[in-house]
């Protein structure tokens, strides 16, 4: 933007210069005008760049770097190799068929001593425990008793806790020595490594993420469709009514748009909850009796209703801006050539609104797919989105930051792919955002 404005500023004087004569023009100090102008342009361009520099730095620090960190975090797996370094190298020669030899146990004992000193052993134990429940106690329990043990450690460890004979435990450690791992992406698609190291589907009662990605997608689609259904006629009205009435209507669209998201979500809670306004009305009208109040919130209905309402202006505004530019004479021309009202609308008016419609769809769908706060507040357990599980993996007491990073990366890639596909289909340069 700044470049082009600088260029256009420079262009007009130079073009007048060439018009006024063939003789080379110079400035007061004798330098040719062309060179002096180019200098001035370059300076202006540099200055313009300097102006956007803060924004660039801001974007780099708050946007680009965190995304790179997030992506790198989603594949990092440093616990075992970093906190159990001796074991990690000793176990490489182990064949995986019987309990490892003494040297592996001795390496483990050495790692434990360091790990207890630095209090890092718990991190390695926590990582292993995630895959083998109870392994944490085995590792930390033996580590606490390590002072009273003497070599050979293999016998001493096994006497202390028979968890040390578990081959799965050792195979896991061998597998976990890789510092880059796909395991969090596997988890994000409900797959995992089996004890023997193959990639398998997780037990059914752990499966949740694929279902949630799909749910997020179809609910976002549904919300987008509802927004078109509700927004299209409103935008048409806004664009065609006399100014006085359409201004009033516009305010009705914009007021909620300017109201805080949290306020609007809470308002829906007040309206839809079982002791809420809508239920009270239905009871009062005698449609339902008071023991059978409808549950319209803390489920999918709540999410769909609240989000459609919140995202509706993002559909109406681009549609309106496009519809406003369609001359009414086009429709009249179509009618005068014999088309019915419907035919004229479908073949003349609708195609002209596509840039606005496409922009609205893109805005609403992409905003919806990453929505967090509204599903969290009104979604209950069946109306939550993938972003809510990402948040859960970041905050719970058993938070899995790396899984959250993997899920977030998948979501990011999915949105980029959708954007790309949309661009192929409609052409982003054709969009009109209002």
């Amino acid at each position, binding site marked *: 933007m700044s470049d082009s404005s600088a260029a256009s500023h420079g262009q007009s004087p130079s073009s007048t210069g060439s018009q006024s004569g063939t003789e080379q023009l110079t400035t007061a100090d004798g330098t040719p005008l062309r060179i002096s102008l180019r200098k001035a342009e370059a300076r202006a361009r540099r200055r313009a760049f300097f102006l956007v520099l803060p924004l660039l730095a801001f974007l780099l620090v708050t946007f680009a770097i965190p995304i790179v960190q997030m992506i790198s975090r989603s594949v990092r797996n440093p616990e075992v190799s970093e906190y159990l370094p001796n074991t990690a190298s000793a176990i490489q020669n182990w064949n995986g068929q019987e309990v490892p030899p003494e040297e592996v146990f001795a390496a483990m004992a050495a790692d434990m001593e360091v790990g207890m000193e630095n*209090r890092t052993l718990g991190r390695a134990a926590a990582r292993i425990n995630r895959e083998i429940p109870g392994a944490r106690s085995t590792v930390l329990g033996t580590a606490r008793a390590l002072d009273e043990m003497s070599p050979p450690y293999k016998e001493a460890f096994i006497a202390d806790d028979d968890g040390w004979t578990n081959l799965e435990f050792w195979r896991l450690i061998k597998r976990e020595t890789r510092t880059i791992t796909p395991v969090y992406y596997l988890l994000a698609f409900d797959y995992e490594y089996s004890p023997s190291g193959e990639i398998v589907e997780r037990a059914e009662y752990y499966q949740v993420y694929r*279902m949630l990605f799909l749910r997020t997608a179809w609910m976002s689609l549904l919300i987008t469709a509802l927004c078109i259904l509700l927004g299209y006629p409103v935008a048409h009205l806004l664009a065609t009514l006399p100014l006085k009435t359409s201004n009033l209507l516009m305010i009705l669209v914009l007021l909620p748009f300017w109201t805080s998201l949290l306020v609007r979500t809470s308002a829906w809670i007040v309206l839809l909850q079982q002791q809420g306004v809508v239920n009270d009305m239905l009871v009062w009208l005698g449609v339902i009796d008071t023991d059978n109040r409808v549950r319209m919130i803390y489920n999918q209905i709540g999410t769909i209703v609240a989000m459609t309402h919140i995202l509706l202006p993002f559909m109406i505004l681009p549609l309106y801006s496009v519809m406003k530019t369609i001359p009414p004479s086009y429709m009249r021309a179509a009618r005068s050539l014999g088309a019915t009202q419907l035919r004229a609308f479908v073949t003349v008016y609708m195609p002209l609104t596509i840039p606005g419609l496409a922009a609205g769809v893109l805005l609403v769908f992409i905003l919806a797919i990453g929505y967090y706060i509204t599903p969290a507040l009104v979604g209950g357990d069946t109306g939550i989105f993938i972003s809510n599980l990402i948040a859960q993996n970041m*905050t*719970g*007491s*058993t938070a899995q930051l790396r899984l959250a990073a993997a899920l977030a990366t998948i979501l990011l890639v999915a949105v980029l792919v959708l954007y790309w596909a949309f661009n192929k289909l409609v052409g982003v340069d054709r969009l009109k955002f209002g």
Partner: protein
Amino acid sequence: MRTTAKSVTLAMAASVVALAAAHAQDDSLTIVSWGGAYTESQDKAYHQPYAEKTGTEILQEDKSAQALAGIRSQVEAGNVTWDVVDMLQADAQRACDEGLIMEIPHDEWLAEAPDGTPPSEDFIEGTLGDCFIPQILYATMFAYNTEAFDGEGPQTIADIWDTEKFPGTRALQNIPQKNLEWALIADGVSPDEVYDVLATQEGQDRAFAKLDEIRDNIIWWSEGAQPPQMLADGEAAIATAYNGRIFNAQVNEDQPFEIMWDGQMFEVDGWVVPVGNDDELELIKDYLYFATDTQRLADQAKYISYAPARKSSVPKVGQHAELGIDMKPHMPTQDENFQNAVQFNTDFWADYGDALEERFNAWLAQ
């Protein structure tokens, strides 16, 4: 041009450093706790007297529900802003094992009992952790709104699962802890075998199947302040809650709530100090010395019905500060209330928490 850029960058860097330094030097403590009536009781019993005595400004954050994840991310990022954190014993044990919080030499840091008993012997057995200073003993149990039932409310854990006899929505916390234990108890497992059963695959399946039975009658809460609100609003007839919260609603808000002590699960809650707080360590130690002495712990029981974790504080528990009612009958440790109590097993959850929490979350979202 280049020099301007450089000087601007330098100026920006300098101001950032200056800001950070100003933050580190100021005489304030950031204390993280659970919010609501609980934070209020801490505020009155510990924070206000301490601020009066020393002039320290105490900043409070209600983030204890995410304490472990919060400390983990602050320590990993090398930017620790929390000075003292109120945390559950199980989480504190994990944080300690992972080196996220400081080891605490109790006898060195804390005040003796009035009779000279060292702190390490004055706190209730099994509650002191390497990195943990216990504060209170509290119970999580079921409570109900008496107006939701024509006759008597539920009396046992099995009654909670009886939706015919006791209809209405149940509000449970959206975590597996305690819910799975209660599900097994409702299914007939004796309280002292609950954790052995829950350690097996069959036991876990059984607990989830039992929860499935009342799934349609459950709404979920996440913050301790929610269940009293849900009971008061009529959104739930029965709710699990922390006993202090229900007590608060009973006496301060005159709510018609009743606590069902059967199957109460008690655990300990207390203070930890995240690593990376070396600059402010003296202030933190001074605060902890003050806030965990015998009198202060007994004082907290003037505002909320949690039992002090120091034995020497127990005889000092008296009457409610404002209402004058005797606090002893409302303590979870009172004989009558304690009959069918189950001790929450922090070791079990340290081992099985990951797997069960994952399964629970998947179960919730399905």
